[in-house]
């Protein structure tokens, strides 16, 4: 998991048209797409909307010149969190349908309904679109640029300062974790080494995690002291320089917002026969 942190960071340092865009426009377009798909009513209308967003994502991904493996790896990491909730929907009724038609009867009085399957599929599509755009955003934008972008868009100073420190120390502890792992490996300890007794491995890992917690506590103390030395107080905030938005960024913002807004509107108008 920690190594994934460095893997994600590596992707953000690549060069492409999408990578070089201002973080602000990427954040806005990403959230516009998320809001658009979430706001699309729970109906078959979601299918063409999600399809169009998938094509949009594909175009952006190709422009970002990232490997599909990057997307697949990150999707696999995130998918279990949403998949469980979506799977449960298949067995339960929901408020979006009036009539439920069982398509399979299971033991313990469980039923699979046609409408619930449709609802779960819509939910899955919404979930996939949302996380796919988050994956795109975080794979093409350096984390510090994301923070600066969010700050320039008006994220309160309390959040930017705290998130900034979190970002900094996630990497400090990432490196600390690496060093601990190297120290264990140097002395032939492997958590999955079956030649070592199970209880011994468990105990060693518990000590290691405990050490990491203690070190993080101590690091926190030292950092706070250093902050006080530099005048930390109520007015402290992260320094974010003013940065102009280039025409290229404006063009992307315009196109992105047009896709995000027009897609659900056009499909909705066509569903009611106005287009």
């Amino acid at each position, binding site marked *: 998991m920690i190594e994934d942190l460095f893997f994600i960071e590596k992707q953000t340092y690549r060069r492409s048209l999408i990578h070089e865009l201002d973080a602000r426009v990427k954040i806005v377009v990403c959230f516009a797409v998320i809001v658009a798909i979430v706001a699309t009513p729970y109906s078959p209308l979601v299918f063409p909307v999600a399809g169009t967003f998938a094509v949009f994502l594909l175009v952006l991904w190709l422009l970002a010149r990232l490997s599909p493996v990057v997307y697949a790896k990150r999707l696999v990491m995130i998918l279990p969190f949403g998949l469980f909730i979506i799977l449960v929907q298949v067995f339960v009724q929901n408020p979006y349908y009036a009539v439920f038609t069982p398509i399979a009867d299971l033991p313990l009085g469980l039923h699979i309904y046609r409408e619930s399957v449709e609802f779960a599929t819509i939910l899955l599509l919404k979930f996939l679109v949302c996380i796919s755009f988050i994956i795109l955003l975080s794979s093409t934008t*350096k*984390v*510090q640029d994301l*923070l600066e972008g969010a700050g320039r868009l008006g994220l309160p100073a309390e959040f930017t300062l705290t998130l*900034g*420190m979190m*970002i*900094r*120390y996630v*990497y*400090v502890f*990432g*490196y600390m974790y690496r060093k601990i792992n190297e120290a264990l490996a140097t002395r032939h300890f492997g958590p999955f080494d079956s030649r070592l007794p199970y209880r011994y491995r468990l105990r060693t890992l518990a000590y290691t995690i405990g050490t990491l917690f203690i070190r993080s506590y101590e*690091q926190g103390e*030292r*950092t706070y*002291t*250093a*902050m*006080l*030395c*530099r*005048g*930390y*107080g109520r*007015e*402290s*905030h*992260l*320094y*974010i*320089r*003013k940065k102009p938005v280039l025409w290229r960024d404006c063009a992307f913002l315009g196109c992105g917002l047009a896709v995000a807004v027009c897609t659900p509107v056009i499909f909705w108008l066509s569903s009611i026969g106005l287009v």
Partner: protein
Amino acid sequence: MHLIETRNLTYTYPGNVTGLDGVNFIAPRNARIAVIGANGAGKSTLFKHFNGIFKPTSGSVLVRGEPITRENIREVRRFVGVVFQNPDDQIFSPTVEQDVAFGPINLGLDEETIHHRVEEALRVVGIEHLKDRVPHHLSGGEKKRVAIAGIIAMEPQVLVLDEPTAGLDPQGVRDLVGFINSLSRNYGMTVIFSTHDVSLVPEVADIIYVMHRGRVVAEGDCDEIFTRPDLLSSVRLDVPVLPKLISSLRDQGVDITMAYTFTEAEKQFLAAYRRNA
């Protein structure tokens, strides 16, 4: 009036461990002061009193003649900048520029002044090119410079460096020596630093304090400290290699004048060679 003065400063850690025991220390204006001592001698503990991080168990700390109080603590911390040994303790922002700007922001400066201070601090330590980098992509020496720049940007009158050479390569140490000397020479700052690398001291210090087990056991200039090998060995230190060699040659009858820095020693060796040639 001295910039920093401690009078009979005593500090006891929880668990009744003595950190400092009756320390009298004076930092005059535009001075380069080395505090030398073995591990656990109390150097870092002393430094943490200079800007009010630690409060004395007894005795007093005076900054510009005034004790540190709740009312003047922010001003004291602007006046006395402390650079910690481990830069990871001190660099807590996502980018170098943001980290260097942290202090000036806390001083309530306007954006233009903050920008100017950041640029200037980065220039002084020679890392303008690292401005947009993230700290975890930097080497130990670069991180050390960022930590120093973060303090320099607050424009303190006294710069306190805790073990500044720890973890630096020889070029890094040379750069640091030049940097400390330039702060004193060009900006009139007082620089206080701790080390147990005694060979560095003659190059960068006018005044030396020797600490052992929380006490100041000797103070003076190079002549007064490095001519006392017994004292230094009793506190787990040693005489720097150049005066040690010259002292040994003198004991063996070579007519050579004592020198402490490389340049002085080179001059004295050449003079001795010419005399004997």
